């Protein structure tokens, strides 16, 4: 029987919730650079350090490139490491994201998802993290503030697991989650170490055991290194199962790789990432009462991609709408759309799929929009197809 710890109900902004989780994780090194809408995270963390509530080295780097580089060095030295960024900052880090994963340097990075220049825009979309999709990181998405808190704690445990040893990003929608105050339950401080013991990195830099990190590999060995990275990611789903069971024991909250609402027995499913899930679920609940057979799903884990779960979940529905808050310019559609198309195709599921590209640069996606999309999904299921492949939602032409 699960033993749920004494929880504390409180209310925080998404950024504050992440910072609170990082403090409770007793992080050793935080290195970051200010960028909206992530800045509150590092402000809170520096307050915790300045007030003696967190015994950590807080380093404000002179750029995101150096921030992530500091994190790689500190992680290899054996420290528990955190950074956070968004948008341009993540783009500036890009080169080192690859090094962090393939050097097997565990760390947690919160990304308060924000659009990329140009034009300059500080509001939410997923273009930043989608650029980092293929960097070998584990990418988690929060749909609300509670999840931003929970996933941050779980991310440390997952990434630092000896079978994994990979960096993890926790994505929270810029402003929509980062700056929204929501009620949440936090674990009491003394319960956290039980779920998340101090980092025990098996390959920590140690002058008594000199090792070479980041060697040069020629064509005869390079591919084997990259295969190891892929294989580590393949182990994530089973380790995630253990981590989430263990987290459920202390929190009472259960996390699977894909969260869903009313998918069983639905004719159509709308899939989205991040906070849009909440909007869709809110509307779907009402529409189902009216008799519309639509469900909603969201990927808590985007990389590694939960192919099997999605193939099962979507195997029996008649139509799918995939919502993307990013786009592959010149490509077939948004990144989540092409991932789901591939999943369906290689699992022999032949159903119509519509891609809704929405919310770029923070354009609102309201309950009215959600209702239209859900009704479109149901209509697609009923008619056995959609009139278009990709729709840019609500744009003026």
């Amino acid at each position, binding site marked *: 029987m699960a033993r749920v710890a004494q929880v504390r109900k409180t209310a925080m902004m998404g950024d504050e919730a992440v910072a609170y989780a990082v403090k409770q994780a007793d992080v*050793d*090194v935080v*290195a970051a650079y200010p960028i909206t809408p992530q800045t509150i995270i590092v402000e809170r963390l520096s307050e915790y350090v300045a007030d003696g509530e967190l*015994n*950590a*080295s807080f*380093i404000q*780097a*002179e*750029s995101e*490139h*150096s*921030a992530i*580089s*500091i*994190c*790689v*060095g*500190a*992680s*290899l*030295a*054996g*420290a528990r*490491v955190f950074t956070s960024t968004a948008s341009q900052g993540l783009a500036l880090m890009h*080169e*080192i994201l690859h*090094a962090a994963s393939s*050097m097997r340097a565990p760390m947690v990075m919160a990304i308060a998802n924000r659009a990329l220049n140009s034009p300059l825009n500080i509001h939410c979309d997923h273009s930043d993290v989608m650029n980092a999709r293929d960097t070998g990181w584990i990418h988690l998405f929060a749909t609300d503030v509670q999840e931003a808190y929970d996933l941050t704690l779980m991310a440390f445990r997952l990434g630092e697991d000896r079978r994994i040893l990979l960096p993890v990003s926790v994505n929270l929608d810029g402003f929509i989650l980062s700056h929204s105050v929501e009620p949440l339950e936090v674990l009491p401080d003394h319960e956290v170490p039980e779920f998340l013991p*101090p980092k025990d990195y098996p390959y920590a*830099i*140690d*002058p*008594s*055991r*000199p*090792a*070479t*990190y*980041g*060697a*040069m*590999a*020629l064509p005869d*060995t390079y591919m084997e290194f990259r295969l190891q990275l892929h294989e580590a990611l393949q182990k994530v789903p089973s380790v995630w199962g253990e981590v989430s069971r263990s987290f459920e024991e202390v929190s009472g909250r259960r996390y699977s790789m894909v969260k869903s609402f009313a998918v069983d027995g639905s004719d159509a499913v709308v899939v989205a990432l991040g906070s849009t899930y909440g909007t869709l679920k809110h509307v779907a609940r009402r529409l189902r009462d009216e008799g519309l057979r639509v469900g909603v799903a969201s990927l808590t884990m985007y990389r590694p991609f939960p192919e099997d779960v999605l193939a099962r979940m979507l195997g029996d529905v008649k139509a799918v709408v995939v919502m993307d808050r990013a786009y592959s310019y010149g490509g077939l559609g948004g990144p989540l759309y092409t991932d789901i198309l591939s999943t369906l195709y290689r699992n022999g599921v032949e159903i119509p799929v519509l891609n809704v590209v929405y919310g770029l640069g923070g354009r609102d996606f309201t309950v009215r929009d959600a209702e239209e999309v859900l009704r479109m999904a149901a209509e697609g299921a009923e008619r056995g197809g959609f009139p278009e492949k990709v729709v840019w939602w609500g744009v003026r032409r």
Partner: protein
Amino acid sequence: MSLQARYYKTVKDIPREDLFAPGHRLCAGCGAAIAVKLALKATRGPTVVVNATGCVEVSTSMFPYSAWGTPWVHVAFENAAAVASGIVEASRILARKRGGETYDVIALAGDGGTFDIGLQALSGALERGHKLLYICYDNEAYMNTGIQRSGATPTGAATTTSPAGRVIPGKRERKKNLVEIALAHNIPYAATASISHPLDYMNKVRKALEKDGPTLIHVFSPCTLGWRYPPSKTIQLARLAVETRYFPIYEVEDGRLRINVRVSRPKPLEEFLKLQRRFQHLLKPENKHILESLKRQVEENWSRLLKLEEAGVRP
């Protein structure tokens, strides 16, 4: 010549132990290899090396071989100072929280990785005050990619991206002053050194490691392929650079500048230039003005150092 030999007075004081193993793939006559070998002989205890991308990095870490007897970390080209910052802070906080020893951290990069692409990360690390030693081995161009001009390439030198052309004979711009850039961050110690003066260099490495803050050593490291001279002349060239005042040897400790190798009767600059093919065109009559300009830079630099030393003010 005055040598501030504190830790190493004669060659007999140099430890036999090599933390930089033979068998690496650096060229015969590589100045950087000597710079690294001597630096590691001057460490005072457990030491971690962070290496920027470059000749030393690619030639010493080819999987599954490694020339390094210390923990050695390479992440990318421009971030050695940042990676080193992370390691320093992690070792200190872990020692505080869990007990255990800290260690010295040396960041090592060439002139491209320091003067140009790594300058921002270096500035950040120096400003933040991490206790680390940054060594720039300067061979005055991007040698790993095949001799392209850098911010450390001197006026007039021919590289593959500043060739000695008929209209533009070599690099037109001046070399940056790395030590003064570093000193602008108010660090406790910065110095130049040359592999031709190993005891001076090693004492500086050791002295820098003893400081409680960021330190920088700019070590002159001739490159046989890039400067186009026979491998046997590496030390001779390094020495001529000092003896012509082309590369003055000095240190700035707690704000006071001291010239460590006093060159009262400099050899003509041509003696240093004529051994290298990168400068051959400067010795032709039509390029005399460039040679004169380079000579002026050398003399201006030297007299400025003398004045700074005498005035006792921070450069």
